[in-house]
């Protein structure tokens, strides 16, 4: 589904990424974990076409994405839930969702898409005429995920979906992520909450200082002291 090879990204003051290679198979849920500032957001934003890579290859279903203008990337079945949600705060909930299905193929299925999102997040149906900026953090995260789902993605890029949410809301959010995954959507999940991410993922990579330092099955990674070291600086 997604193939990233020797990708290097550097721009402005954002954390850089060096020589990263990773794969997401069709219908797979892959987590990228690592401490803040490791370059996780830089990585997913670049896959979504927000930045140009400095070197390397991003391929989705065989199509090379790195050179496309950003508004073309989504045609290849990629949708982004960005860090910090980045909703269109002065537009209503429903309008935000409609931007999600902006590209032609998705637009045709607008009604079905809305039903699906409102099915996942019933509260959004009630709030659909409200300005997105006036929602609570958890509801905003729902809109951000819903907006990406409206694009009918084959690969969903989720950047820190639990950031700044209350624990109960985080539980609900992970249940939803699992449900989306069960529908057959491949997911690349960037998450600071290591335990949650490893619980849900099929595979995971550890990103540290812009490089992938470990990867593999969650159980194996959970035992690795490397993760604790990356996060807390101390192994036991």
């Amino acid at each position, binding site marked *: 589904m997604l193939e990233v090879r020797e990708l290097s990204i550097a721009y402005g003051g954002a954390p850089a990424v060096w020589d990263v290679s990773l794969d997401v198979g069709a219908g797979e849920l892959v987590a990228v974990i690592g401490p803040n500032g490791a370059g996780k957001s830089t990585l997913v934003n670049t896959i*979504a*076409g*927000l930045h140009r890579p400095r070197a390397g290859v991003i391929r989705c279903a065989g199509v090379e994405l790195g050179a496309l*203008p950003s508004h073309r990337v*989504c045609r290849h079945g990629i949708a982004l839930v960005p860090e910090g949600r980045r909703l*269109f705060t002065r*537009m209503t909930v429903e309008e935000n969702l409609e931007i999600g299905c*902006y590209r032609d193929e998705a637009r045709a299925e607008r009604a079905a898409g809305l039903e699906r999102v409102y099915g996942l997040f019933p509260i959004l149906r009630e709030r659909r005429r409200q300005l997105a900026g006036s929602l609570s953090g958890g509801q905003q995260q729902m809109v951000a995920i819903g907006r990406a789902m409206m694009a009918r993605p084959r690969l969903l890029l989720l950047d820190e979906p639990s950031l700044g949410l209350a624990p109960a809301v985080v539980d609900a959010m992970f249940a939803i992520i699992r449900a989306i995954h069960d529908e057959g959507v491949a997911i690349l999940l960037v998450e600071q909450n290591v335990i949650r991410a490893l619980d849900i993922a099929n595979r995971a990579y550890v990103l540290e200082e812009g490089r992938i330092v470990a990867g593999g099955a969650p159980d194996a990674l959970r035992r690795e002291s490397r993760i604790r070291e990356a996060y807390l600086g101390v192994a036991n």
Partner: protein
Amino acid sequence: MPSATLLGQAVVSGLLAGGLYGLLALGLSLSWGLLRLVNLAHFALALLGAYLTYQLGTALHLSPWVAAIVLVPAFFGLGIALHLLFARFRVTEFTSLLVTFGIAVILESVIQWFWTADYRRYETPYASASFKLGPVFVPLLELFACLTAATLALATWAWLRFTYVGKALRAAAEDPAIAGAFGVDHRRHALLLSGLSAAYAGAAGTFIALIATLAPSQIWAWLGVVFAVVIIGGLGNPVGALLAGFLIGMSESITMAVVAPAWAPLVSFSILIGLLIFRPERV
């Protein structure tokens, strides 16, 4: 204290004049609010439209309404050309003010070159047509201008509110990168909006030709009033621009009736200054 009739007349004239302010503000508000370009040349375009309407009417005896059918699409193209220039040189919100200031002066010179600095009056049979609403005179042309402004403002509002292109424009105004990630091609939409904004200037020009006495320096006369309208109405908000136009128009005409005509500019400029200082976050 002026009589009730005089006040009533002032309110009606103000409302009608305000419609024209709203029409002029419409294009400016769209390009500022949704493209972050401050277009001082907007007024010059409107006045150019007025002079061209005048020229087509006096030299070729073309009805102003036929002239509008020619001019409005031509201005649409002009707007696109201007935006291509801005996009090519990556004009920012701030440099747009300087560049369009220069363009406005060029257009003013062009107008003065062809039509001189003399006052021009386009005499048409519509100019004097009016009806009486109780004791108050309602000039037909102004009423028509006002209704056109209202129609365009509402249509633009609906376009931004209900179509995919409109929504994409609003989304990209807030976060172009994320809008782009969902497939919004902001550069194409920006061209469309710039064309539309210039077309509105052309439409306003038609009415200016019919209603006002023309002089090249009028470019600057509109400036303060219309900027006040744009900012009061809220950037990128077409209905807001219309309502703010009514508000400013009425406050001006009441000042004229109650105090003195020459003091009228003070009202709109003071409102503009007050807003900038006390509510700058609206911009």
